[in-house]
């Protein structure tokens, strides 16, 4: 719960990490990639306010106490989701695999949800692993990172034939939230690997069964994402990086990107995610609650975001997708619940 000016907000952070990217976890022979990856993340952190920057050493490996203070104590996060990211080609024990993330579940009961993952290139063994992970953690979601390298392969697409059994398995097991993160490489390398058209296809195929949360709103392909999300009822916008990477560093772009998302995607389908430990949640939550669409002509035809919309994005939308109970006192007020749908919720023929 985040409290500001005497008002309380339910915060559902849809994108958290508890990683170990310290040199001790780098795979021999892959040090260059492991080091490059975490240094790249560290550069992203520099897009937040200077007072929230960490040293590279702390950023490579932070403690459970850091996590507790930044996320729950200072950040006011009520419930957060770990997006497990393996990258075992580069990190011996994974960047933040499910076991590593799950270590925190017992420490903070009821506060954390751990998402699983799958990789269709693992075939039958991967399917069995997904079942085992579900058995153990009662998964409600998976995080898919399509640019992950594996045995000489530089990635995969959601439309690959061997991905279908995995989506079917998710349906069968009741794992209904699929978080998709596009990365820079994929086979064949001459195609645009950030293209989101494969999400479009599977979202249509699994409408009513699976939700697709596109992380980082498809960045750097915001336009493709918006044109797709406006047509697919089960496609959602994950705001990690939008708030963290733009709100402080590029406030004008932030306002316009928010305006476009409100127009094409709508406040009902946008999810707050801090992407901790890239950025701490506190300044993001606080800044987002303070934020208003600039009252200038170039922003005039964007939908406005009111208090009720901010409540949805910050917590209520995510809670709904993950069946998380919101205390009555933090649920939308009657007036907010009755407020008309945003004018931005349009369909595109």
């Amino acid at each position, binding site marked *: 719960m985040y409290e500001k000016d005497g008002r309380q907000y339910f915060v559902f952070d849809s994108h958290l990490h508890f990683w170990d990217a310290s040199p001790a976890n780098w795979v021999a022979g892959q040090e*260059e*990639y492991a080091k*490059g*990856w975490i*240094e*790249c993340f*560290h*550069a*992203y952190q*520099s*897009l937040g306010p200077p007072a929230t920057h960490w040293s590279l050493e702390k950023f490579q490996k932070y403690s459970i106490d850091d996590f507790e203070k930044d996320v729950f104590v200072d950040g006011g996060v009520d419930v957060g989701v770990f997006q497990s990211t393996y990258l075992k080609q580069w990190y011996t024990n994974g960047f933040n695999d499910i076991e590593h993330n799950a270590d925190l579940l017992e420490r903070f009961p009821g506060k954390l949800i751990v998402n699983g993952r799958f990789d269709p290139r693992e075939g039958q063994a991967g399917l069995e692993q997904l079942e085992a992970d579900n058995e153990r953690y009662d998964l409600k979601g998976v995080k898919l990172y399509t640019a992950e390298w594996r045995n000489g392969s*530089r990635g995969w697409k959601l439309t690959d034939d061997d991905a279908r059994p995995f989506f079917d398995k998710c349906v069968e097991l009741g794992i209904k939230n699929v978080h998709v993160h596009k*990365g*820079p*490489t994929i*086979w*064949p*390398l*001459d*195609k*645009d*690997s*950030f293209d989101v058209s494969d999400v479009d296809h599977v979202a249509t195929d699994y409408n009513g069964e699976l939700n697709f949360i596109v992380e980082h709103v498809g*960045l*750097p*392909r*915001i*336009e493709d994402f*918006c*044109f797709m999300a406006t047509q697919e009822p089960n496609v959602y916008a994950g705001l990690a990086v939008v708030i963290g*990477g*733009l709100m402080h*560093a*590029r406030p004008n*772009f932030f306002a*316009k*990107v928010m305006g*476009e998302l409100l*127009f*094409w995607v709508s406040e009902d389908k946008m999810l707050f995610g801090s992407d901790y430990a890239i950025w701490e949640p506190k300044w993001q939550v606080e800044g987002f609650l303070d934020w208003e669409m600039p009252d200038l002509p170039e922003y005039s035809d964007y939908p406005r975001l009111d208090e009720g919309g901010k409540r949805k994005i910050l917590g209520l939308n995510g809670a709904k997708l993950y069946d998380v109970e919101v205390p009555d006192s933090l649920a939308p007020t009657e007036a907010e619940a009755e407020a008309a749908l945003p004018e931005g919720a349009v369909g*595109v023929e």
Partner: protein
Amino acid sequence: MTLRRRVLGELGTVYDPELDEPITALGFVGCCEVSAEGDVSVRLRLPTPQCAPNFAFLMAADAQAAIHRVPGVRSARVELEDHYTGREINSAVARGEGFAAAFPGETRAELDELRALFRRKALVAREGRLLGSVPDPSSARMRDLSGPDAARCRVLRRALGIDASDDAPAFVRGDGTPVRTDELGRFTRMARLTALSLETNGGMCRDLLRARYPETEREEVAV
């Protein structure tokens, strides 16, 4: 003008295909050395080590070709710094080979289709910035457009095989078909979003580049 100035000037014609901005303006040219004999060595650096290999390759290969176009250049060497596929890209560019040779077995074709796709996006984005400059966009002609965005539209249209003459319709979709009056509202929104997407990514790339190479501002090679 010194040979180095001319080389830098020519590098200013090399565009990041994804952002549609010159690599010199983006700060991607980290170093440019020219010997008295005309041997040129350029180092390119990108905002992250994971920048997409296909776009990185295009910029490196285009830079190599641009340098060779400058009279007085005897040899050209372009190297991509600190990139996770830098080894593959640098050796293919040095040998004058294509993308498929840089990544054997990992490609289906060269990068022409990818480049065309992003030229179409860039064209629509540029048009998005020009829509407000004429009273009636659906009847406007190319001659009615002016300024740097209009000049870039002409370059992009020619590269895409779309009529760029003065009499041609000013506003076309990415595939070259003119935008009709009844499509204008939707086209405007889509074009504006595409422009915002490119600009936002350009902004983020600049911020990340500065975080990665703090001296960028100082050393940024001006043309």
